[in-house]
């Protein structure tokens, strides 16, 4: 059975009535206005929506990067909304892998070292070279970020995110800064990781075409979830064009 599809898959994340208000100096911005959501073990979901719809905010809250202003969020029974900074740090360290739109590699470290930064503090990491092989960069391990193309940098970021064997992989616009050909290579790496490691994977995008690689597609608009689609047929990234 494919993960995330069957009724037996259990909810990894549960969010109820999540609100988030940003205090931007003199302006207050309500990014999430009461979101209810469940994510299931091993599934790959795409969060789709225009900019400002609250996708990133939701992802940050699920990943323990940020905390909700009100509402309830839990991961495997852990209350993330009430967690202290220390608990959130431990949660991220042990369970979560992140991939960011702008890769956010540390420019002064090589590809291998960027992965090692995470494996050094993880409980049961894979070898950095294995993680890099998994994203097809086994031959670029000693290159610095500035010596890699955008797609390669993003694949290093994916290797960095998966090297700890995370239970959850959260990707914020992983192809946003890439051309379509490179983007597809990156998505292939993500799908492969999701399949091989079984990590619950959430990918943010505003590109509707990408949605077809997901098991489920969650649509956001103005801080609300406005619909959830189940893909009956999951496409291979190689079949995408945009």
């Amino acid at each position: 059975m494919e993960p995330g599809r069957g009724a037996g898959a259990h909810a990894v994340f549960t969010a109820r009535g999540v609100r988030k208000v940003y205090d931007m100096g003199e302006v207050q911005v309500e990014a999430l206005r009461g979101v209810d959501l469940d994510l299931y073990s091993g599934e790959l979901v795409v969060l789709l929506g225009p900019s400002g719809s609250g996708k990133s905010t939701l992802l940050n809250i699920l990943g323990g990067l940020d905390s909700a202003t009100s509402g309830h969020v839990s991961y495997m029974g852990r209350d993330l909304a009430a967690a202290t900074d220390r608990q959130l740090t431990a949660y991220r360290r042990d369970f979560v892998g992140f991939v960011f739109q702008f890769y956010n590699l540390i420019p002064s470290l090589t590809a291998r070292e960027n992965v090692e930064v995470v494996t050094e503090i993880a409980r049961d990491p894979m070898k950095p070279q294995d993680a890099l092989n998994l994203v097809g960069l086994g031959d670029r391990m000693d290159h610095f970020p500035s010596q890699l193309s955008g797609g390669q940098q993003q694949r290093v970021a994916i290797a960095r995110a998966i090297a700890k064997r995370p239970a959850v992989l959260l990707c914020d616009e992983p192809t946003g800064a890439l051309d379509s050909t490179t983007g597809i290579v990156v998505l292939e790496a993500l799908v492969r990781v999701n399949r091989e490691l079984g990590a619950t994977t959430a990918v943010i995008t505003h590109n509707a075409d990408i949605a077809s690689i997901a098991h489920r597609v969650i649509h956001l608009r103005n801080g609300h979830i406005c619909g959830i689609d189940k893909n009956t047929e999951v496409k291979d990234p190689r079949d995408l064009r945009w």
Partner: protein
Amino acid sequence: MECLDRKVIRDLLHMRGQALAIALVIAGGAATYIMSASTLDTLRATRDAYYSEYRFADVFAQLTRAPASLRGRIEEIPGVRQVETRVLASARLDIAGFPEPASGQIVSLPAAGPLLNRLFLRSGRLPDPLRDNEVVAGEPFAEAHNFAVGDRLAAVIHGRRRELTIVGIALSPEFILQAQPGSMVPDFKTFGILWMSQEALEAACNMEGAFNSLALTLTRDAVLQDVVGRLDALLAPYGGRGAHGRAEQMSHRFLSDEFRGLQQMATIFPVIFYGVAAFLLNVVVTRLVASQREQAAVLKAFGYTTFDIVVHYLKLIVVVVLMGVAGGMALGTWMGRAMSGLYMEYYRFPFLIYLVEPGVFATAALVGTLAAVLGAVYSVFKGARLAPAVAMQPPSPPKYRRSVLEGFPGARRLSQSARMIVRNIERRPLKALFTVVGTAMACAILVLGGFFYDAFDHMVETQFKLAQSDDVAVTFVEPTPRRAVYSLTSLPGIEYVEPFRTVPVRLRHHHRSQRTAIQGLVENGRLRRLLNSDLAPVELPASGIVLTDYLASTLGAAPGDMITVDVLEGRRQTVEAPLAATVKEYVGVSAYMRIGALNALMREGPAISGAFLQTDRDLNGLVYSELRRMPRVASAAVRENVLQSIYDTMARQTLTFAFFNTLLAGCIAFGVVYNSARIAFLERNRELASLRVLGLTRGEVSFIMLGELAILTLASIPLGFVIGRWLGALMVAGFQSDLYRIPLVIAPDTYAMATIVVLASALFSGFIIMHKVRHLDMVATLKMKE
């Protein structure tokens, strides 16, 4: 966390210019501290070892003459451990091939060798007790004349000329500094210490079975004051001139003063350097953390704690500090050795225990690290504490507002660029203030460095050009009838003679007292003038006593007060004299009277102790040889030689110091200005690129950057003057002693030099920034993610 450690190294390499500038400033702090502290430790340890190994006495006393049998009674004074009685004599020295007058002090050596103040024989042996023509010469004097064992010289002791053979060359803990009494700096060519067998010296001075000087050591529980009091009472009938402890022993006192100066240097300079380094690190680290907020955020996203991130950046700071401290250690040790070596030329020790206590290194490192961490920890913590999601968003635009200046009428005419400059300074007032204070500190150090030179120069000018204008000062063996003036005047080459009388006294006012000498001067004297606080010559009042202002304040006396004078020679009477006026003097603690009044006070005829001479320069050789032939002349000091030796000393000591000082201050000035400018550029390159895109020329854009730099630099200079002067005043207070007072004099040259160095550092930084503006890649900068 090996990877993050690698990041530390690479980040450092990336910002190597800034890191180096900061490390240099820290190195400056560590170096000055290690130099001063190690020199101090070295001199102290060396002195203490020397004192204890060579049995330096605790109490000294001089008297006219006492029978040797008195020694037993001195030994009975409670608290006295060992007593050594001896004969001291001044002598005029005749040295072949050295026409100028030289003098010496001859110290007797007991047949069995001295118990106290033992000699360290550099070469040769002690004099044979049975021979009356053998002496041991002090090392610096021997060196100055290239004397070796076996060489000869002649000495006139008590009016009788003797041919002496040098049988040994030695050092003594009693004469670590061998300077002529009353002189500011030693002149080894014209003043020397000689040791002779007791029997021979007693015979030469008609002191058989008697002594005129003694030294003693105390038991552990002795009270100095008690012993001195009893000793004075015992010696009074024998012409005792007042016993004193080590604190008033000349060589010991010079050393103690030097230690005090070093101690101060070991505090003030490192505090400045470390303070500036802390500020620099604050600026640089704030910028670094801001520019790496995303990196910190990613690390946190992957589970690093705030603490991990703080430690990561602190490691970077500590590496910079340790680099600086390591450099400072090397530099400081080297400078310390150089300084100790310099001191060894004046302070004669038989050995040098060069010592850098590990504690000194540890303190330098610890204080440096502490200052740096304190400077940076707030920024680091602030950066590391941000929630990871917040850190990954670009920072919200900085808040600006209309500047206070713009509220003033006419401010509307300010150009947009000028407004940008003003608003930028006002937006971060603390940062602007720190930049100004940091640069001012560099300026202040330069002022302080120049101040030493100016003050010393002023002292010498005042003392030897305004106050003393004699060519030669002649001292007689003993008080002499005034008619000796005529025999001096009749000598060829002597144009003018002015007699003086010197009487050793103890001055008392209420419970305070001071041992010194009263100098009796002629009225309307030309060769020796007293100066008031404005350094204008003042006439000696017909009656009463005149004191050096420092002595008056030591005694707590003001003009009009009665001063009690205990005469320590002749009939040893105690009289009262009114304090008529005070005069300004930077050296010594002299008292003055008219010579007639002093004679009257002594109840003696017109006696003189010596005379100041004005000579015909061309006939100086003749004058010297005539003086040499006069048996009554104990010594003759040639002013030019004294001046020369003072300037030599000053040149070597202050130029070495000034060189280090300018170097280090340059480091600070450059470090502060460069870092501030570099960071201002980094923070605002996007803004500058936008302006360039909008059509501003490179010149106009540079103006915005450099205008800020120029305003801050210009503001720092006057502040630096004020701080420098204040530090100078601090030094002046610390260096005040009976021996000399440093005046707070700072020449315009010094201010000018400080300004030039600061401006040069600023200009250099300005050029680097202009170069960067010129090569600003507009497109790349604007595309770059903040």
